[in-house]
């Protein structure tokens, strides 16, 4: 088991290096002189030669690409992404400020989606090819087709403009949370419902289900005690994979509702050209995705020993 963990952990290193190269290059191809830009953005004054010179040396901008990259990488793996170009804070401080706000939105959406996706997916699979199944399938296609920013605006129009029930934007109280969560759930749930349906259907087509039915078990027991339990392995895997949406997972929803989380931070930073923040967000969301993949693989090996031995 330990060997398996070690080998899988080593395998992600080249991928993380690749992501770090992509995110670092984002900043490196910045046109003109970043040092001049930093002086202007941060102090709001015409850059003088010595100030630019000072910042350039301070941030190591005078060194060649490879040196700069390794400097950046060695700090980045320790969570130090340098200083923001437009604010007098470190990039990490800027990100940590926004993380809890994003997390609130994400976990609310995640919890609700998991519950309803399971319910809808099971109903859909059990009643395969009946009316209710068609409705669920159409919903899951609509969920991935309807742009969340449009849905969000329509909900704002209904609940804020017409009915005056909920605020259109703002943050951090329960009433502010309802519309963004509803909007995000609509698409978040759709893909998951579909996955639950597919996994359960696959289990239901296996031989042991036929045996269970043949020996006269009630359908309820066949589905819930036998098929669903086995289907839960891929389902749990799939659900935990989507945890990577925690970092910059809901850009469009956050922007529509002016929710000051990491998604909004990304867009703001792009407009302010605060590229160290953009770079850190790209890197972190990539790393989180890979790490989730790894954790899920390991969990899988714990749940299902066949995987470990087969390898």
């Amino acid at each position, binding site marked *: 088991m330990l060997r398996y963990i070690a080998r899988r952990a080593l395998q992600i290193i080249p991928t993380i290096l690749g992501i770090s190269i*992509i995110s670092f290059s984002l900043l490196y191809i910045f046109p003109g002189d970043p040092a001049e830009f930093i002086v202007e953005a941060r102090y709001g004054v015409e850059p003088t030669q010595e100030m630019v010179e000072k910042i350039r040396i301070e941030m190591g901008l005078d060194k060649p690409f490879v040196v700069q990259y390794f400097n950046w990488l060695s700090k980045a793996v320790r969570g130090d992404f340098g200083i923001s170009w437009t604010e007098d804070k470190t990039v990490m401080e800027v990100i940590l400020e926004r993380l809890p706000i994003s997390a609130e939105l994400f976990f609310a959406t995640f919890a609700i989606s998991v519950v309803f996706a399971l319910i809808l997916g099971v109903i859909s699979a059990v009643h395969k090819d009946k009316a209710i199944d068609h409705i669920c399938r159409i919903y899951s296609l609509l969920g991935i087709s*309807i742009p969340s920013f*449009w849905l969000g605006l329509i909900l704002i129009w209904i609940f804020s403009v017409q009915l005056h029930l909920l605020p259109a934007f703002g943050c951090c109280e329960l009433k502010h949370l309802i519309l963004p969560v509803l909007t995000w759930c609509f698409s978040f749930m759709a893909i998951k419902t579909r996955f639950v349906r597919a996994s359960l259907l696959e289990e239901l087509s296996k031989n042991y289900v036929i045996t269970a039915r043949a020996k006269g078990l009630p359908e309820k027991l066949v589905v819930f005690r036998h098929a669903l339990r086995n289907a839960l392995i891929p389902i749990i895997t799939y659900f935990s994979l989507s945890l990577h949406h925690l970092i910059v997972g809901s850009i469009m929803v956050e922007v529509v509702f002016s929710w000051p989380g990491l998604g909004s931070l990304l*867009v703001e930073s792009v407009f302010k050209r605060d590229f160290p923040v953009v770079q850190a967000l790209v890197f972190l*969301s990539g790393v989180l995705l890979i790490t989730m993949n790894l954790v899920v693989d390991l969990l899988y090996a714990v749940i299902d020993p066949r995987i470990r031995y087969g390898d």
Partner: protein
Amino acid sequence: MFKVIEIFRGIEIPKNNLCRIGLSVVLFIILLGSFAPLIAKDPYETNMAKRLESPSSEHFFGADQLGRDLFSRVIYGARTSLIVAITISAFSMGIGCLIGAVSGYFGGIIDDVIGRIIDVFLSIPEIVVNIALVGVFCTIYGSSTWNVILAVVFTNWVSYARITRGIVLSLKEREFIFCSKAIGAKSSWILFKHIIPNALGPIIVLATLNVGNIILTIASLGFLGLGIQPPTPEWGQLLNSGKNYIATAPWITFFPGLFIALSVFGFNLLGEGLRDILERRRIYE
């Protein structure tokens, strides 16, 4: 074209419910886009007297904040979205399929390296990188539609590469490839005459679903103000300007969004339907 009809057993397309609805929606959007000059008026003509006018028999979808006819802008928007989405999809397909085919076919160290690169691109969050790249490109080149195309192709080619690589790896072991090699066929001949035609089915399914996705990505970028710039009409960007008038003129938001949803839905349905047909065909064989 005949090849495509053959792969999907042409006659089955109208029999499959998903395909039928999907294809009608897609054709409807394509026709709207192609015949935009006949259907719509001038989408650029401003008329401040008609600012934010509500929908009427003269202006089906109302007028926007500069008094432009929203119906015309939405119809011309179909043109923009389709052209850009298909361009992106074509570039990604070309690059991705080539890389995937080379990687799968030659194997060895080439495959190891390309496989790693594919892994990296599969694990970067697409929309995050798209937004970041468009931001960087805008700073370097100023805003243009090519920024959007380049940024999306950068992340989008990888799905084509992955699927092509997988197919090539499985085809490589089949007898007809061995035979072809035994007769002395060159690599390029095998690649273009045997492998690519066999990989065409799954790639077309992917491309159909992909165009839908790209339309959504373009609209998202447009909505953030990073996409195709005004005055060129584009659905996401129309929504972006509409959101400021949501209380007084909700139609500016409503109609462009409806068309985004409709076209993405159409491409998704068509893609799903084609996949169904392909899978059933495989079972028959």
